[in-house]
């Protein structure tokens, strides 16, 4: 099978039958191209989805204190609800919650916090939070540390900067850690810098300990928001946990637990599960189409090889008369089929990967890094050799059955 001489015989036949070779190659190359391109596109969509969700924990729940919309316990509607530190402490005890943080928004509006250093000043979003906020927001600490429990208990004036305010406030190459900046007139010391995989929109914030902010910005023990993650809980369990927390809040703040407006809840869990299902379906769809196209290509090769064998009846007859054994004929045909499918497949693979490179230049929210991994490439290559052998098998068997007498008489 691996004799060089036999390969030369195969190359010889291939080289001297260019049209047949081209036709064979085109169908397989096209099949592989479509398969690779679709798989890569599927991966790109999947990556795009994950990136969209990556800005926050995929199992996160957010609760904002809002105004009531249902009369309850003698109270009229439109009563403003405000969370307190005690709500945070109680929610923290609820089973199934693994990370939790409260948030206090200092100042009158969320984007109205003036941050100043030396002669530079600008407005950024200030988040006063608990240490778990790091996980809830899916940030990456690139320098220093995040808000710690010690910051919280000692009400330290520590601040963690996003990449954007850091680059605004500090010169290139300047070490921000330990430096002081002024937030709404109160000096804070920089303890860490974070980045976020979802990009600069998520990197514009400043984080300070919630306890410090409540003290410094006249917040008493108020919180505007609670956010927490529910570990591995599915949509059902997540809903039970949310109901428990909302129930506690309703009890304490005297509102109807069914009032959707008193506490506004947002969670990623259902959305993520729905998207996962959708993308799984897309992946299946794409794979089926790709494999179907490839199968058509393989059948095409088999067909062309079958015609080739018919066309080569006389040649095969001559070879047999000259002493070719059936196995040598079978190997000759299969080897040719395997070689052609593998070669064409690699061309298709290269074209598919190239096309994906082009597609990745299209900057879209839905598509991120469309590509196929090396493992898939290797699998595809092995699959092609198998497909080639299969495509060659039936024609080869037909060839081995050629009766030299009829073949030689065939004018």
């Amino acid at each position: 099978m691996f004799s060089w001489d036999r390969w030369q015989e195969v190359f010889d036949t291939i080289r001297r039958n260019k049209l047949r070779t081209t036709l064979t190659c085109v169908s397989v190359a096209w099949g592989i191209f479509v398969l690779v391109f679709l798989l890569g596109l599927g991966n790109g969509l999947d990556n795009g989805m994950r990136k969209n969700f990556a800005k926050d924990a995929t199992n996160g729940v957010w609760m904002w204190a809002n105004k009531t919309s249902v009369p309850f316990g003698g109270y009229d509607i439109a009563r403003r609800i405000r969370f307190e530190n005690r709500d945070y402490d109680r929610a923290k005890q609820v089973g199934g919650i693994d990370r939790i943080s409260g948030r206090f928004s200092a100042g009158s509006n969320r984007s109205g916090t003036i941050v100043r250093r030396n002669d530079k000043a600008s407005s950024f979003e200030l988040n006063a939070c608990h240490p778990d906020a790091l996980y809830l927001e899916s940030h990456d600490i690139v320098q220093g540390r995040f808000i710690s429990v010690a910051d919280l208990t000692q009400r330290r004036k520590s601040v963690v900067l996003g990449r954007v305010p850091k680059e605004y406030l500090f010169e290139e190459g300047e070490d921000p850690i330990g430096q002081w900046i002024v937030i709404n007139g109160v000096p804070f010391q920089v303890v860490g810098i974070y980045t976020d995989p979802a990009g600069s929109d998520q990197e514009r914030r400043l984080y300070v300990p919630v306890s410090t902010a409540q003290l410094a910005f006249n917040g008493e023990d108020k919180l505007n928001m609670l956010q927490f993650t529910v570990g591995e809980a599915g949509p059902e369990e997540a809903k039970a946990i949310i109901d428990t927390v909302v129930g506690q809040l309703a009890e304490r703040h005297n509102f109807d637990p069914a009032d959707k407006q008193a506490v506004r809840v947002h969670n990623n869990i259902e959305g993520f599960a729905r998207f996962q299902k959708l993308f799984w379906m897309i992946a299946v769809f794409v794979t089926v189409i790709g494999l179907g196209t490839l199968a058509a290509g393989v059948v095409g090769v088999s067909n062309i090889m079958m015609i080739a064998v018919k066309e080569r009846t006389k040649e095969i007859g001559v070879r047999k008369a000259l002493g070719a054994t059936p196995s040598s004929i079978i190997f000759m045909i299969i080897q040719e089929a395997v070689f052609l499918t593998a070669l064409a497949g690699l061309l298709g693979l290269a074209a598919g990967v190239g096309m994906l490179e082009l597609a990745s230049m299209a900057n879209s929210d839905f598509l991120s890094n469309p590509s196929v991994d090396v493992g898939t490439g290797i699998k595809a290559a092995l699959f092609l050799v198998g497909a080639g052998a299969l495509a060659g098998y039936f024609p080869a068997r037909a060839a081995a059955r050629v009766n030299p007498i009829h073949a030689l008489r065939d004018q």
Partner: protein
Amino acid sequence: MLRLSKVNKYYKVGTHSLHVLRDIEVEVADGEFVAIMGQSGSGKSTMLNILGILDEYDSGEYWLGDTLIRDLSERRSAHYRNRFIGFVFQSFNLLPFKTALENVALPLYYQGVSRRKRNVIAMEYLERVGIRDWAEHVPAEMSGGQKQRVAIARSLIGKPRLILADEPTGALDSETSKQIMELMAEINASGITVLVVTHDPEVAARTQRVIRLRDGKVVTDGDLASISNPRMPVVSEPKAEA
């Protein structure tokens, strides 16, 4: 060299079978130059196919040297064809995409001889049939006579003991035919047994012995004199079967 003993061959045609060879008794000694003659359908080509192990027979015995050729596997038949028999055909049967040299070398490929070595040997044989200069040409670029010379070189390269030629001059003009038959005679003179199937009395006249078949039976078997015997007139026959 070879012996056919009570060989019978039937072809199935629809529901009934056609008896194409009837109790053929032929013995050919080493080094003979034999013509097999007969009309279309007389069984001469079938006989040649059986001798060439390209076809099987239904009863009797075929001995090639000391070997009984019967119920051989495809692999064994291929081996015997490759090692003991050289074929020359009316339509040459050269592979159109291979050069003269590669065509001649092909039997050695199936013997497992290395490319370089078989090309050297093939060149010697092309020289021997007088078309060394055409080694790198493909068949389409050659005349009928040249093609047949390539085919003859190919039949010889495996050093066979027997050459079977099926109408080797059937597609050639009379002058070229004469040259090809001279070449066949030379080959025979080198000690190889040659059997030629032919319609052409002139071709048969170049051989030493003529076996005539009619309706699947041997009707005459003898030296040149027997075909020129006035009591057995040579019936004029069509030139080619095709």
